[in-house]
Every structure is written in structure tokens, then in C-alpha cells.
């Protein structure tokens, strides 16, 4: 039982990272119907930027809370700027082009960011300091939660609730939802679609940046191609939840984290990815719109 609950905690931690990243995919897909393949690489980029700021400004001394907040904010701003730049340069010129052109452009942008990271920070692993958060671990009857895990779970939950409120309760949120449903109609209603897309990229990139920083703080080792793996998992999470659906991305992320943990914990580490993708394919076949998305009838 302890083992099971421990696996649950393990799964939820990584699941909330997936969820944070998945939100970026799902928001962009919702509005632009584009798989932003470069999003995972932005996440990796944010981890590197965060590390550079940490080491530049604070050395490896233990950090105060204020400093941590500053690093997180600065990184988010830099990455949000990158996200907007990405949209301007690689996606906006292709908004009316064939679907596949945008897909190729996204793949190209992913290569550019990934190899840009390699050229800037080098091909070898960069390592986060191990003492950003205290190394406290709480023991609840054999089930362990570390300080870092707790911060990840709590802050992710906070961010997701905030985003949910932002999308559902604010005027901008309403405009985003309207644009996602019908861009042309939204335009007619006086919504500036370019501005909405920019907001989507800012918010998505910032969430991805927080995810990337968590990955850095929790796992510490950074490689220039790491974004691809987190991106892929997060993207699968977005599809499981129903791509385009924001609560879907959150649910999908958590479920995928749990699913991975349970498969590796109880069935097989050898075939863990295979199981993940079989799950994905089954969901695509049985319920292509995902758990929380809804099917749109084909128009003729």
C-alpha cells in the first residue's frame, strides 16, 4: 500500500510537470490548430535560461525565497518573449498556408531552438545546483514527499487554477475561447486575433518556463535535446485530455504521469513507452477528441 501511494506521488509530480507543458500545446492548438513542435524545446530553453540566471546572479549560495521568485519571473519573461518571437517568425507568415507547411515550419523551429541551445551552452550536460530548495523530506507513514516535490505540486495546482479562472472568468479569457471556436466569427465580433494569439503564446510559454524550471530544480541535469522528450509526453497528455481543452490538458498530464508511474512500477520499465503509446493510439481510435474534448461534426 505504501508502495502504491508512493507511486501515486511519483506519478503526480511528473504528471503536473507534463500538465504545465501540455497547457502550452493545447492552447496553441485550440486557437491555431497547429501542433507547436517547438514548445518542448522552449521548455528546455527555459531550464537553461533559469540555470544561467541562478549561477550568474547568485552563485551557488543557498537562495532566499525572494531570489527564487525573481529568477522564476525573469526566466518566464525571457521565455515568453521567445515564444512571441517564435510565433511572429515561424507561424504567423503561415497562417493561411497549407496545414502541412506549418507543421514543417514547427519542426524546423524545434531544430533551430534545440541546436541553438547546443551552440550557446554546449553539447554536454549542464547541472542545476542541488540546494535551491531545502532537502527536507516528509515521511507520512512510509510515504515520502520531498520539499521540491511539494513545491512542484502546490505551485502547479495554483497555476492551473489561476489559468482556469483566467480563461473562464475574464474578458480576455472569453475572447480566447471565442477565437478557438471560430476565428472568423471572433474577428467579426471585433476581437483582434493577432493579439489573442500573442497572449496564448505568452501564457503558454510562461507555463512551459515554470515547467522547465521545475524540471531543472527537480532533476538537475539539462541536455540540449531534453525538450523533445518532455514535449512529446506533454503533447500526448494534451491529446489524452482532448487537445484544445484546457482542463483536458491538466487532467491528461496528471493521468499520463500516473499511468507511466504505474506501468514502470508494476508492469515493465522495458515496455513503458510502448504502453504509453498504445494507450495514446487506443484513445485516438476510440475517442479521438480525448477525454474532455468534444467531437465536431464534419462540415460539407
Amino acid at each position, binding site marked *: 500500500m505504501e508502495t502504491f501511494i508512493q507511486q501515486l506521488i511519483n506519478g503526480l509530480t511528473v504528471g503536473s510537470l507534463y500538465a504545465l507543458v501540455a497547457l502550452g500545446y493545447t492552447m496553441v492548438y485550440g486557437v491555431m490548430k497547429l501542433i507547436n513542435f517547438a514548445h518542448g524545446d522552449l521548455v528546455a530553453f527555459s531550464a537553461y535560461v533559469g540555470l544561467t540566471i541562478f549561477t550568474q546572479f547568485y552563485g551557488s549560495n543557498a537562495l532566499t525565497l525572494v531570489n527564487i521568485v525573481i529568477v522564476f519571473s525573469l526566466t518566464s519573461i525571457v521565455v515568453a518573449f521567445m515564444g512571441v518571437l517564435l510565433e511572429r517568425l515561424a507561424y504567423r507568415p503561415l497562417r493561411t498556408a497549407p496545414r502541412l507547411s506549418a507543421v514543417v515550419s514547427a519542426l524546423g523551429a524545434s531544430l533551430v531552438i534545440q541546436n541553438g541551445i547546443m551552440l550557446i551552452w554546449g553539447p554536454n550536460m549542464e547541472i542545476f545546483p542541488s540546494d535551491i530548495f531545502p532537502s527536507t523530506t516528509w515521511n507520512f507513514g512510509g510515504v515520502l514527499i520531498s520539499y521540491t516535490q511539494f513545491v512542484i505540486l502546490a505551485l502547479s495546482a495554483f497555476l492551473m487554477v489561476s489559468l482556469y479562472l483566467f480563461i473562464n472568468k475574464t474578458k480576455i479569457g472569453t475572447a480566447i475561447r471565442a477565437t478557438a471556436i471560430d476565428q472568423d466569427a471572433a474577428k467579426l465580433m471585433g476581437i483582434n486575433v493577432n493579439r489573442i494569439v500573442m497572449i496564448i503564446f505568452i501564457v503558454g510559454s510562461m507555463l512551459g518556463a515554470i515547467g522547465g524550471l521545475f524540471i531543472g530544480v527537480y532533476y538537475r541535469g539539462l541536455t540540449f535535446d531534453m525538450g523533445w522528450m518532455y514535449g512529446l509526453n506533454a503533447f500526448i497528455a494534451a491529446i489524452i485530455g482532448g487537445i484544445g481543452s484546457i482542463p483536458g490538458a491538466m487532467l491528461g498530464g496528471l493521468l499520463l504521469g500516473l499511468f507511466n508511474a504505474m506501468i514502470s512500477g508494476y508492469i515493465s520499465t522495458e515496455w513503458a513507452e510502448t504502453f504509453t503509446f498504445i494507450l495514446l493510439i487506443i484513445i485516438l481510435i476510440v475517442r479521438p477528441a480525448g477525454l474532455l474534448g468534444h467531437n465536431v*461534426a*464534419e*462540415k*460539407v
Partner: protein
Amino acid sequence: MEYVLEIKNVSKFFSGLVAIDDLTINVKPGQIYGIIGPNGAGKTTLFNCVTGIYAPEKGSIKYKGKDITGMPPHKIAQMGVLRTFQNIRLFKEMSVAENIMAGYHTKSKQKWYHSIIHNSFYKKDELESWKKVEELMNFFDLSDLATTPTGDLSYGKQRKVEMARALAASPELLILDEPAAGLNENETIELTKIIKSISEMNIGIMMIEHDMDMVMNLTDYITVINFGKEISQGVPSFVQDDPRVIEAYIGSDDENDKEDANGK
């Protein structure tokens, strides 16, 4: 066999909303059957049910006495029910001849291996196919445009290509969704003649049209629908004077407006 198409008590819902409601329509071979009604009445939805794009929730559709309800579109087309689209669906980048060839697909007897090895059977079949395309291009006066991409053609020409494409499949039921939309007066007159001569080949024709002059001139029989329901049925002269029809059309939009429910 009296009817080429028998639609019996067909209903179709979209997420709980009724799109067509208990319609019954019978089309005879060689008959030109008009479907009219205000925008959003469910006319195109009816056509989509007949051609298999949608499966109706209730009722049955019979083609030449055979039940085709819920069959996939390509099977229905293979049986001889061909259509054109309200918002022209041609293969834009491809030439007029290649577009018409698409209609001949069901008639060509080529097997998969003929796409790898071209034997004498292939050559014969291919020649026959292109001859048919040539015949249709002559019929529709499109021969000069054989190699032109259809995307570059005028609206009227595109409508003709779409009809030629449907005819290439030698249909027994031809479904035309607003064939005159966007056409000028001369083109409409030409189109009327063409439709007439198609019906003389004993092909049943079902058409949606907003151009009332054309409908009244051309059709043998009409069903008027509104909100998915039949409100009147009969020969043109009867329908024209039916008070229920006049009432349905009062306050409705300009007759050339796009039907919103049919989308893109």
C-alpha cells in the same frame, strides 16, 4: 420499378436539434425534382443523408428499391447516386480533364497492379476512360480548357465541370446542390438546357435551387421544406400559390444568401 429514389419518414438530428424532420420524397427516373425552402431549412442536410455523408437517425432511403440508409458515400456513389456541391468541391489544382476523370473512377476496371505494370488491358481501359472524358468535355463545351486547372475557371465553368464529373459516373440519380448559384443570366439559361437534356437521358435529378424562375421552369415536382419539415408538395404551379409557402418565405433573407447550416 416506379421510383429511382424513395425517402421515407427520414429524420436527422444534430446534438439534439432537429435538422430534418420526417421527410418523405419520391423521385421518378427522368424526373426533375426541386427542393426549395428558406435558408437553414435542412435542404443540404437532406442531400447529405441521401449521399451517405450523414446517416439519418430515423426513416429509410431506398435507391432503385434497395435500402441505402447509412451506407458509406462511396458505395452509394458506386450504385449510381452522384452529386454536386453547393460550395463547389473541385480538385482545384488539377486540370478540367483530370477532374472529370474522377467521375469515371467507378467505371474504370483497372486493378491495383495496373498502377505498377501497364499491360494491354490497362491501355484499353485507359483509352476508354479518356474517351468518355472527351465526350463529356464536348457535351459541356469544355474541350478548350482540358488542361486548365479548375481553380482558374469562372464560377459558371466550375459548375459545369462539377456536373460533367458527376455525369462521368453514368448516374441514375443526379443530385444538384444550387447549380445556378453565382451564375449570370446567360449561364443560367445554358445550365437550364443542360439539365433538361440530362433528364432526357432518363436520369432522375434532384436539385436545390434558390433561383425561382429556374425552378418553376425546370422542375416537374417540388417539395418545400422549412425547419426540416415539409410544408408543401406538388407541381410547380401548385406550390407557387400555396399560402404556406408564401408565408415561409416572408421575412426570410435574400434568396441568394448562403445557407448557414451547410457551412463550408
